[in-house]
C-alpha cells in the first residue's frame, strides 16, 4: 500500500481516493460562527464583497473604462465564452436591471422579515435557488441540528415539498450557532437526487440580485477615502482625524458601512426603503462626489497643483487607478475593512463568480502575456481557502458528474453551451456532449435546460462522488493522540487541559459509528494503551526498544469510539495523574511518530502530537541550534531550514498512507520548530505553538490553548483528500505555498483537510492569452467526510484578460499581493537568506511603483505616486518587514520567527492580513452610531486607526486586533468613566497587571466593549486572547512593536520608508 497512495494519480476520475462529504457537525463549531452564520459578518477585512462594478447605467456616467459597455457585452462577436443563453438565470424577472444594477425590486423590507435569501446571502452572492424554495416559516426554530442529524427529513430529493422549510431554516435562520455547510445527509435517493428543497424558480431571480446589493451599497464606502484624503491635503496635514465624511445621512447611505457584508446591508437599510430608490442612489454617489472633490482641490493651495494636474488628467480613470501621492496623503486607511476589488466581468458572470474569501487572485485582471506581467512587476497568483466553513453550499448527488473529456474540468458556470447538447470547456476549449441525465433540471424539474442546472449556476458546489472516485472504501475517521509525558511536559500541566477538553468533546469529534481513537504517550519509551472492550481498565503497554519500534498488539490499540467510550474516558481521567512523579526528562519523539505512523498506516487518519521539548532520544533527535545572543542580530538569521530530513521523510510516508500529523508545541525553550514543523507541513497538518506555556504561570496561554483545542477537536475534517488546481490553457502553476505535498504538477495531496487551512499558488503565463476575454481557474477538492462519504468540492473563478498595464494595475488586489509576497518571502528566507527576502519585498514595492510611474502615468510629477488600489502596498510591505517572521534587530526567538513563517504560509488570507497589519480601534468612546445589529446585539463599529503612537492618546483606551491576540491599551489619564464602567476598577493604578478578560458589568459601556470584542472573536475560528496593557505591563513592548508606522531603533518609520521607496523609484 505504501506506494499506492502516490501512484494513483491523475487521470480522469483518477483522483485517488475520493471523498465524502465532510460532515460537519453542525453544532460543533461554535467558535467559528463568523463563517457559518448568515447573520454573522464574515471575517472582516477581506470577506466583504467587493464593490460591484457599477452597472450599465453607471458606466455611462462613470469612469470605469476597461470593460466595454456592459450592455453590449453579451453581443460582441469573438467572445463565445461569454455568450450565455439569454435565459440565463440571473436575469429573469429583473427588467430594471439595466437601469439599476442590482437589487431593484427585491429588496425586502429589511429586518422585519429576514427572508431567507437575504440573510443567507452574506456569503454567496448567488445562492442557489433550489435551496430556498419557499421562504421558511420565520418562526421556525433554528435548530441547528436539523440539517445534520435529521437525515430523512433532510434529504431533499425525496420530498421536495415538505423539505424546504426545514432546510431553509437550517441555513437561513442563522442563529449564531448554526453550521454552515448544509449537507443533506440522507443517502442519495435517486439518480437525480439533487438537493432540492424548494423548487421555486422565481426565488432564484429574487435571490441573485439581492445578494448584489452590498456591492452597490459599498461603492460609496469606497469613495469615502476620497473626500477624506483631499480634505486632509487642503488642511495641510493636520493630525486630526479625517473629518467624518458627509454627515450622518450620507453615512447612512452606506458610507459608514463600507464593510458590511450583505447580510447587514439589509438590516441597516431603512426598512421599507423604496427599493428602486436605494440602489440607484447609492451607486451614483461616489461619482458625484468625485467631481466635486476635484473642483475643490483645484481651488486649493498651489503646492497641490501637480497632483491636481494628475487628478484632472486622469479623471477618466477608474477609482482604482486614481493617482495618490503617498507622501502627501497620510490617512490612507479606509475606516473599515478593505474589500477586495471586483473583477471587471460582465455582470451576469461576476454575479456567479466564486467568492473572494474562497478563491482570490492577486490580479483581478490577468495580463495577456508573460512579458506584460513582467512589466507590471506584480506577482500573479491565487489564494485559496477551499475548505472554508460556508454558510451555504449547494450539494449535488448525481450518478454522473459532468466533466470535460480531455482536461477533466468539472462543468461550471463559465462554460459555454453551443447548443442544447454540447458544451465547450472553458479551460481547454474542447467541445463536449451534454449527457442525457444532465438535460433534466431537478431544480425546476424541467427537461432540456442544462444551463440551469445548479452545477452551471454556482461557482462553488459540492458533489457526492460515486464509487469511481474511490480507490478503496472511504476510510473511517481515525484519531490518534500522541502525548509527551516527560518530566518537562508534566511540569507544564498541559495534560490536564488536553484530557479535559477531550472528555468534554469526545462526543462531538466529527465521525460516524466507525470512528476510531487511540492514544500513545512517550518519554524515553513509548507507551501504548490497550483499550479493547472487555478489559476492566485500560492497559498500558510499554515498548522500550525505541531503535526498532513495533506495535505490541496491533489490533486493540485503535478502538471504536462508540464501543469503548467508557474505557477511553477512564484513560483520560487517569492519564494526568499517571505520570505525576515521573523523573524522565528525555523525549523520544521520532520513535513515537514512527509508532503512530505504523498504527495508522492501514487506515489513514489524524495524529495529534503534543510536544513540550526538544526531542533528544532515538531517531529524529535534534540539538539546540539557537544562540540566544544572536536573536537580535541584524545579521542573517541562521537555522531557518530543518536540521534533518527525518521529519520530512516521515511526513511523506504519512502522506502516502493518508496520515496527517498536527503538531502542538508547548514549550518555553527552543524546540527547533523549523525541523519539527516539517512533519506537519508535508503531511497537510497544522501547527500550533504556545510559547512559555504553563498551567499556573501563564493562564492566558492556557485559555487560548483550551479554546484552540476545542475548535481543533470539533471542527470539520476531510480525510484522504486531494486537491487539483486547473487553469485555462496557457497558464500554469509554478510554485505552491501551504501545508501539503505536491504530488504531481497540479495535484496536492492532503491526507487531512481542515477548514482553517489556506493555500496559495504562483502562476506564470506560458502561452499568450490572445483572443481570450476571460480565463478560469478551478480548484477541485476530493475528500472523505467524517461520515464516510466521498465528496468533491469545486470552486471556479473567472477573471478577465487585459492587455494594458493600466488595466492590470486597476485590478491589483493589494491584500492578496501582500499575502502572496509574504509566502514567497518565507520561501526565500529559507532557501536563500532573511536579508534577501527582506530586500525582495522592498524591491517588489519599488518595482511595481516604478513600473506604474513609467508606464502608466502620462505625466511625471514629484512625489511618490501610486494607484489608489495599491496605496496601501508600501504600508503592508513595511508591516511585513516589521513582522515577527522577517524583522531584524529586534530580539526574536527562533521558534517564534519560524512559527510566524508557518502561519504566513498556511493561514487563509484574512487572518494573515490581521497578523501583518493589525487593526487599531479607539474604544473608550464607543457609541451606537453606525453600529451593526446582529441577532439583537448591537455591535459598535469604531474607525480603524493608523498604527502609530501619535494616534494613541493618554486620555483614551485603544484596542488592537492582531489576529491571534487582542491588546487593550489603557492610557495613563484614561477617562475614569471607562475605567469604572468597563474595567471595573476605580483608577488607573488599580488596573491589574495581568488582566485577560473584561468583567461583565451591567453598564452600557461595558456591554458595548464586550460586544465589540466578542464580535471580533467570532469572526475567526481560533480564539484570540485579550491582554489589558498599561504602561508598566511587560506586554507593552509587544503592543508597541505593532505600531508599524513608527520608527524603531532598527527599522524605518513609514514616512522614511516612503522616502526610501521614492528615492529608488525616481532613480
Amino acid at each position, binding site marked *: 500500500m505504501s506506494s499506492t497512495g502516490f501512484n494513483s494519480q491523475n487521470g480522469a476520475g483518477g483522483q485517488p481516493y475520493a471523498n465524502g462529504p465532510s460532515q460537519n457537525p453542525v453544532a460543533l463549531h461554535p467558535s467559528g460562527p463568523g463563517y457559518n452564520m448568515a447573520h454573522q459578518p464574515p471575517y472582516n477585512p477581506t470577506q466583504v464583497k467587493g464593490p460591484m462594478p457599477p452597472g450599465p447605467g453607471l458606466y455611462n456616467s462613470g469612469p470605469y473604462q476597461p470593460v466595454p459597455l456592459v450592455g453590449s457585452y453579451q453581443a460582441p462577436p469573438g467572445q463565445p465564452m461569454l455568450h450565455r443563453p439569454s435565459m440565463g438565470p440571473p436575469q429573469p424577472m429583473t427588467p430594471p436591471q439595466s437601469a439599476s444594477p442590482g437589487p431593484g425590486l427585491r429588496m425586502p423590507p429589511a429586518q422585519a422579515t429576514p427572508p431567507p435569501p437575504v440573510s443567507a446571502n452574506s456569503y454567496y452572492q448567488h445562492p442557489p435557488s433550489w435551496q430556498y424554495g419557499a421562504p421558511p416559516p420565520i418562526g421556525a426554530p433554528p435548530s441547528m441540528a436539523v440539517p445534520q442529524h435529521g437525515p430523512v427529513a433532510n434529504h431533499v430529493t425525496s420530498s421536495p415539498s415538505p423539505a424546504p422549510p426545514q432546510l431553509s431554516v437550517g441555513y437561513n435562520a442563522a442563529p449564531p450557532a448554526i453550521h454552515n455547510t448544509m449537507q443533506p445527509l440522507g443517502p442519495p435517493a435517486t439518480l437525480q437526487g439533487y438537493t432540492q428543497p424548494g423548487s421555486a424558480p422565481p426565488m432564484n431571480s429574487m435571490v441573485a440580485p439581492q445578494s448584489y446589493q452590498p456591492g452597490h451599497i459599498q461603492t460609496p464606502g469606497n469613495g469615502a477615502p476620497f473626500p477624506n484624503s483631499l480634505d486632509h491635503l487642503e488642511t495641510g496635514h493636520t493630525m486630526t482625524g479625517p473629518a467624518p465624511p458627509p454627515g450622518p445621512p450620507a453615512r447612512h447611505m452606506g458610507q459608514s458601512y463600507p464593510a458590511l457584508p450583505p447580510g447587514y446591508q439589509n438590516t441597516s437599510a431603512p426598512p421599507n426603503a423604496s427599493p428602486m430608490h436605494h440602489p440607484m442612489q447609492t451607486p451614483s454617489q461616489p461619482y458625484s462626489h468625485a467631481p466635486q472633490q476635484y473642483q475643490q482641490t483645484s481651488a486649493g493651495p498651489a503646492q497641490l497643483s501637480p497632483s491636481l494636474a494628475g487628478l484632472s488628467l486622469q479623471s477618466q480613470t477608474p477609482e482604482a487607478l486614481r493617482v495618490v501621492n503617498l507622501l502627501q496623503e497620510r490617512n490612507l486607511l479606509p475606516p473599515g475593512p478593505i474589500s477586495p476589488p471586483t473583477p471587471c466581468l460582465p455582470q451576469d458572470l461576476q454575479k456567479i463568480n466564486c467568492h473572494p474569501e474562497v478563491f482570490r487572485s492577486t490580479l483581478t485582471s490577468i495580463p495577456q502575456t508573460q512579458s506584460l506581467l513582467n512589466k507590471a512587476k506584480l506577482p500573479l497568483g491565487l489564494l485559496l481557502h477551499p475548505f472554508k466553513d460556508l454558510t451555504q453550499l449547494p450539494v449535488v448527488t448525481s450518478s454522473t458528474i459532468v466533466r470535460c473529456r480531455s482536461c477533466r474540468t468539472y462543468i461550471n458556470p463559465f462554460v459555454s453551451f453551443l447548443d442544447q447538447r454540447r458544451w465547450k470547456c472553458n479551460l481547454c476549449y474542447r467541445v463536449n456532449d451534454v449527457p442525457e441525465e444532465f438535460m433534466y433540471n431537478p431544480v425546476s424539474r424541467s427537461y432540456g435546460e442544462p444551463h440551469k442546472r445548479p452545477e452551471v449556476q454556482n461557482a462553488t458546489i459540492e458533489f457526492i462522488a460515486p464509487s469511481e472516485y474511490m480507490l478503496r472504501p472511504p476510510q473511517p475517521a481515525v484519531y490518534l493522540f500522541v502525548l509527551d509525558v516527560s518530566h518537562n511536559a508534566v511540569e507544564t500541566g498541559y495534560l490536564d487541559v488536553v484530557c479535559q477538553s477531550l472528555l468534554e468533546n469526545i462526543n462531538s469529534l466529527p465521525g460516524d459509528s466507525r470512528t476510531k481513537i487511540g492514544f500513545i504517550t512517550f518519554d524515553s519509551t513509548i507507551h501504548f494503551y490497550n483499550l479493547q472492550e472487555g478489559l476492566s481498565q485500560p492497559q498500558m503497554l510499554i515498548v522500550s526498544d525505541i531503535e526498532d519500534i513495533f506495535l505490541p498488539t496491533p489490533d486493540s490499540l485503535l478502538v471504536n469510539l462508540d464501543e469503548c467510550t467508557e474505557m477511553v474516558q477512564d484513560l483520560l481521567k487517569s492519564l494526568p495523574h499517571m505520570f505525576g512523579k515521573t523523573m524522565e526528562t528525555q523525549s523520544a519523539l521520532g520513535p513515537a511518530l514512527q509508532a503512530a505512523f505504523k498504527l495508522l498506516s492501514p487506515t489513514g487518519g489524524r495524529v495529534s502530537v503534543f510536544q513540550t521539548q526538544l526531542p533528544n532520544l532515538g531517531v529524529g533527535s535534534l540539538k539546540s541550534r539557537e544562540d540566544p545572543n544572536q536573536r537580535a542580530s541584524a545579521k542573517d538569521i541562521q537555522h531557518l531550514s530543518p536540521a534533518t530530513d527525518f521529519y520530512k521523510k516521515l511526513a511523506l510516508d504519512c502522506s502516502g498512507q493518508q496520515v496527517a500529523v498536527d503538531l502542538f508545541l508547548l514549550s518555553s525553550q527552543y524546540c527547533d520548530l523549523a*525541523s519539527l514543523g516539517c512533519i506537519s507541513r508535508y503531511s497537510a497538518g497544522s501547527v500550533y505553538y504556545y510559547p512559555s506555556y504553563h498551567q499556573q504561570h501563564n493562564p492566558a496561554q492556557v485559555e487560548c490553548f483550551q479554546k484552540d483545542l476545542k475548535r481543533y477537536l470539533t471542527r470539520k475534517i476531510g480525510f484522504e483528500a486531494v486537491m487539483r488546481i486547473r487553469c485555462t490553457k496557457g497558464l500554469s502553476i509554478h510554485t505552491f505555498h501551504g501545508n501539503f505535498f505536491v*504530488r504531481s*504538477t497540479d495535484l496536492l495531496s492532503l491526507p487531512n483537510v481542515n477548514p482553517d487551512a489556506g493555500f496559495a499558488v504562483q502562476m506564470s503565463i506560458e502561452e499568450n492569452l490572445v483572443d481570450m476575454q476571460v480565463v478560469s481557474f478551478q480548484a477541485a477538492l476530493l475528500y472523505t467526510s467524517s461520515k464516510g462519504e466521498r465528496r468533491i468540492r469545486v470552486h471556479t473563478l473567472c477573471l478577465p484578460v487585459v492587455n494594458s498595464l493600466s488595466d492590470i494595475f486597476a485590478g491589483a488586489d493589494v491584500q492578496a499581493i501582500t499575502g502572496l509576497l509574504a509566502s514567497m518571502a518565507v520561501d526565500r528566507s529559507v532557501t536563500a537568506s532573511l536579508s534577501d527576502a527582506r530586500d525582495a519585498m522592498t524591491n517588489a514595492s519599488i518595482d511595481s511603483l516604478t513600473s506604474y510611474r513609467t508606464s502608466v502615468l502620462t505625466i511625471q510629477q514629484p512625489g511618490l505616486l501610486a494607484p489608489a488600489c495599491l496605496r496601501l502596498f508600501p504600508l503592508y510591505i513595511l508591516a511585513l518587514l516589521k513582522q515577527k517572521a522577517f524583522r531584524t534587530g529586534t530580539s526574536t526567538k527562533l521558534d517564534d520567527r519560524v512559527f510566524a513563517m508557518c502561519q504566513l504560509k498556511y493561514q487563509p488570507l484574512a487572518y494573515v492580513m490581521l497578523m501583518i497589519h493589525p487593526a487599531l480601534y479607539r474604544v473608550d468612546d464607543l457609541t451606537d452610531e453606525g453600529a451593526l445589529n446582529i441577532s439583537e446585539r448591537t455591535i459598535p463599529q469604531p474607525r480603524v486607526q493608523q498604527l502609530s503612537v501619535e494616534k494613541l492618546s493618554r486620555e483614551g483606551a485603544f484596542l488592537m486586533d492582531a489576529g491571534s491576540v487582542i491588546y487593550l491599551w489603557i492610557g495613563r489619564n484614561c477617562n475614569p468613566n471607562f475605567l469604572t464602567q468597563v474595567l471595573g476598577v476605580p483608577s488607573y493604578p488599580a488596573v491589574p497587571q495581568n488582566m485577560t478578560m473584561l468583567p461583565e458589568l451591567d453598564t452600557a459601556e461595558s456591554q458595548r466593549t464586550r460586544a465589540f470584542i466578542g464580535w471580533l472573536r467570532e469572526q475567526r475560528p481560533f480564539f484570540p486572547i485579550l491582554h489589558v496593557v498599561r504602561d508598566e505591563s511587560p506586554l507593552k513592548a509587544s503592543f508597541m512593536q505593532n505600531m508599524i508606522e513608527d520608527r524603531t531603533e532598527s527599522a524605518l518609520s513609514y514616512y522614511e520608508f516612503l522616502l526610501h521607496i521614492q528615492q529608488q523609484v525616481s532613480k
Partner: protein
Amino acid sequence: MEAAVFILSLVDCCALIFLAVYFIITLSDLECDYINARACCSKLNRWVVPEMVGQSLATVLMLVSLHWFVFLLNLPVAAWNMYRYLMVPMGNMGVFDPTEIHNRGQLKSHMKESMIKLGFHLLCFFIYLYSMILALIND
C-alpha cells in the same frame, strides 16, 4: 596507452550519456504525471553520486594523461556536479527533493540542466572518439 585512456573515457562518456537520457526521461515522466514526485526523486537521487563519480573520472583521466584542453572542458561540469551535491540543505532529501521539485520552476531547471549535460556529453563523446582513433592510428 593513449588509446586505452580514450577507450576508457569513451565508455565512461557513454554511461554518462545514458544517465543524462535517463534523467531527462524520468523528469519528463514527472512533468507528464506518469510518476509521482517521490518516486521520481528517489530514482534520480540514486544516480546523482554515480554521475558525479563518472564525470570526475573522465576529468581525472584527462588530467593524468595531460590532455589539458579536454580536461579544462570537463572541469566546470565536474565542479558543478560537486557543488550541487555539497550544497544540498540539510533538511532536503538529496539534490532532487520531492517537496521542492514542483516549486519555483525547479523541474524545468533540472530538465534544462540535463539537456545541457546531454549535449556536452555528446560533444565529449565525439572528441574522445576522434582522439581514440587518432591514438590508434598513431600506434
